[in-house]
């Protein structure tokens, strides 16, 4: 059994590494296939063709592609990711600063969304087919369908521009002075700036866990083992929470890990609407500016996070749901 699980996990790990290598290679190619080159974004009328060449040479872009690729892979393996074209500072430094901002926003939101979502979903399942359920599912669907750009702007217009309850964006007041690093993230000023983006993001992410939980729970409640437990006289509490909820929660857990990965990378719009200096915007700008080192490694990091969280979800599932490892090992994975 444990050998089986280990075999399964090793297999997943291997697959994850291969995926990463593929992603890295595709990233390398994609950026070089885009029209234009990094000097396009730097180019200014005072720059001659010669200055442009000089810049390309400084970026190391005058070398043959395969040489660049080898350097690139070497950089990844040695974790020496080089300097950003735009910022001139080390990629790792730029990314890590932004990553913290994004993580604070997204981990908070996704966690809230999944905790609340599971509760809401369970509640709706409990109230199934009542007016509350129909209404609740409707609201959740609307939140899911509404573009976060739109809800974000609406939130800003109402709560910031109109009533002035929350700031119009950013992570701090313009004149904020932090009292040490942690003060950046625990000061009331920061929390005040965090409220609206977290609310909007949470509401956006809430729908998937809520609907998944609701439907899963309804499915599970129809399962034979639930009926047997009723017949066996187990308490409704034990049936709902010990058995039904745990079974229904599994797929939701898996989603949570994956959503967090996507939330971290797909936060561009939220970050833009709320002027949040996070990773999503960084990647977006780096891509537009064709800042190869920054864009490539940010994407690679996102891919690592998504793939890593997926792997983690697999590991978790293998422990929480004993069927996973065996079934997957037997059928040869996905």
């Amino acid at each position, binding site marked *: 059994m444990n050998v089986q699980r280990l075999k399964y996990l090793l297999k997943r790990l291997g697959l994850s590494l291969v995926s990463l290598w593929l992603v890295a290679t595709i990233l390398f190619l994609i950026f070089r296939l*885009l*029209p*234009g080159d990094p*000097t*396009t*974004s*730097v*180019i*200014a*009328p*005072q*720059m*001659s*063709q*010669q*200055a*442009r060449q*000089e*810049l390309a040479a*400084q970026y190391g872009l005058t070398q043959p592609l395969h040489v660049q690729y080898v350097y690139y892979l070497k950089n990844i393996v040695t974790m020496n990711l080089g*300097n*950003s*074209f*735009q*910022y*001139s*500072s*080390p990629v790792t*430094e*730029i990314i890590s*600063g*932004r990553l913290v901002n994004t993580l604070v926003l997204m981990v908070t939101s996704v966690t809230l969304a999944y905790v609340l979502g599971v509760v809401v979903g369970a509640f709706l399942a409990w109230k199934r087919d009542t007016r509350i359920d129909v209404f609740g599912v409707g609201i959740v669907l609307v939140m899911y369908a509404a573009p976060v*750009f739109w809800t974000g*702007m609406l939130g*800003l217009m109402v709560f*910031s*521009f109109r009533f*002035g309850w929350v700031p*119009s*964006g*950013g*992570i*701090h*007041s*313009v*004149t904020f002075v932090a009292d040490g690093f942690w003060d950046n993230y625990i000061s009331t000023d920061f929390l005040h700036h965090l409220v609206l983006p977290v609310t909007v993001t949470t509401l956006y992410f809430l729908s998937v866990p809520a609907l998944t939980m609701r439907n899963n729970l309804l499915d599970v409640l129809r399962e034979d083992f639930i009926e047997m437990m009723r017949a066996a006289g187990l308490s409704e509490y034990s049936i709902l929470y010990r058995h039904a909820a745990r079974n229904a929660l599994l797929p939701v857990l898996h989603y949570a890990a994956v959503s967090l990965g996507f939330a971290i990378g797909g936060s561009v719009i939220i*970050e*833009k*609407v*709320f*002027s*949040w*200096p996070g990773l999503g*915007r*960084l990647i*977006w*700008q780096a891509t*537009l*500016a*064709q800042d190869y080192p920054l864009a490539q490694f940010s994407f690679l990091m996102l891919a690592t996070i998504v793939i890593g969280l997926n792997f983690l979800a697999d590991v978790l599932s293998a422990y929480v749901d004993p069927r996973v490892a065996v079934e997957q090992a037997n059928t040869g994975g996905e």
Partner: protein
Amino acid sequence: MDRDRRKLLAGVGVGAVGGIAGCTGTDSPDDSGNATTTATSNSSKKKTPDSDRVVTGSELEEYETVSFTMQSYTKSLLPQRYEWTHLFHDQLVNKLGVEAEVQIGQVGQIFDNWVNVDYDVNMAGWSGKPSRIDPNTFLSAFHTDGGLYTPNYSNPEYDELVEKSQRETDREARKELVMEAQQILAEDVPVVFLFADDALAATNTANWSNYTSQIGDQNYVHVWNLMSMEPQGDLPAIKAGTLFPATLNPMAPTKSADLMGLKMVYDRLVRLGPDGQPQPWAATEWTAPEPDTFDVTLRDDMTWHDGEDVTPEDVTFTIEFLQEWGVPYMKSFYDPIESVEVVDDNVVRFNLESASASFTGVNLALLFILPKHVWDGLPEDEGLEHPKNYNDTQYVGSGPFTVNTFEESNRVVFDVYDDHWADFNVDSFIWKKYGGKTQALATVEKGDASWVVNIQPGQFERAKQNQGVEANGVSQHGWKAIYMNNARRPFDDKMFRKAVAHATDKERVIKLVYGGRADSIEGPIPPANDFWHNPDLPSYDGGEEKARRMLFEAGYRWNEDGTLLMPKE
């Protein structure tokens, strides 16, 4: 008319949110992006031609259709340009009967095509950066050897005028030459000069007063404004916007926002005044003993932020350091300098490779002075490949501000450097980045920021309604044009280019797209650049009738469908 209205509404809709959807959007043409869509407007109709101008039957063999592609940028990136590209497209199809197609693409493609002159027609624009106030920048853009950006236009007479104007150090005499050069361009129509649209800005006048405006689209981010601004109480000056410096390393700038930040910390010998003309700054005066030699006298009361004196050796070091390591973005400013030497106590001599009348107004106004005692030997000591990779935390300059806090993509807090000779009413200047212009404007309206520049027309109208906020459109010296490839048929024909100019109804577009807030232009130096502008250029407002007559006289014909034909080669 209805069609135009509809388009306009669509344009304004995008314009209002363009600040968010359109990203860095305003620093044209420095934006980037990729992906291409091609859109063809097919609702414009060709006119039925006069019968005597129609060819039919076997005669058609001798003609070919006039067809071309007009390249422009996406709506989300440049909403107004997207609109007027289609408006002009329709005008040309409708009035001349050309077969034209609009090609929409991202910067990576369309801008590169412009640079490499790979287009029939490219809808281009120059933003009003301070370095472009000196007439040489825009005049050189039409010089045969102008390098990038020329539309394959070549006129020896014009080239000579531009070269002469660069050698002429007497301002009035130079002005004459500049006027003449503009005259030639206006007659040759290498491109259809369209308009210089106002830089739209909003300032909070409830909490701050006494702003100083400068021509161009980098309004208010300059020392003159920071010196004159008077806040209530001890409020700092706060710029809210979407542009933001990526680096404050003086050896690493790659975009205009970087220079805008750097110029607060690092002094320049010359600064451009509110009117765009060079003003003494770190230099008290300059003379040109020869057209290719400049003697610059340094102020003697300047210190670096670490307390050391600023010396002429710092100036010579800076130039040599830049030339040694290479900063491509600044290359055109330091490259023309052949050598630099200290000739007197406080005088630095710049020996140029060739005469350059724009040297003070461009080169000296953009080159920073770096402290020798900080940078000399630094790359070697730190083991850096290039000084641009130096992780500076001190930012030792001699400028009016020191860097208190630099939070990437969020804000920079500049504190006034007390030992600087210039006087400020504010104690600090904060540059705050927002995700979109809408949010930035809201901050100004709430009184949490002093100003926001380059807002969209819709936002401008909104700001106008708000008490305590002043919305102002500042005429500027950047401009837009229909670039035609002068090496391709039929744009190699001056008459055809002129006909296009006549058929182009700029006033209507200014009204529709810019709400009237733009100056119509006939040459590359708009009225805002008052000193160098030539107000007496011929204008092309003959409209459809004149355009068609000119084409007919030049040998162009139409087929029965109303499609314009040109004789085969």
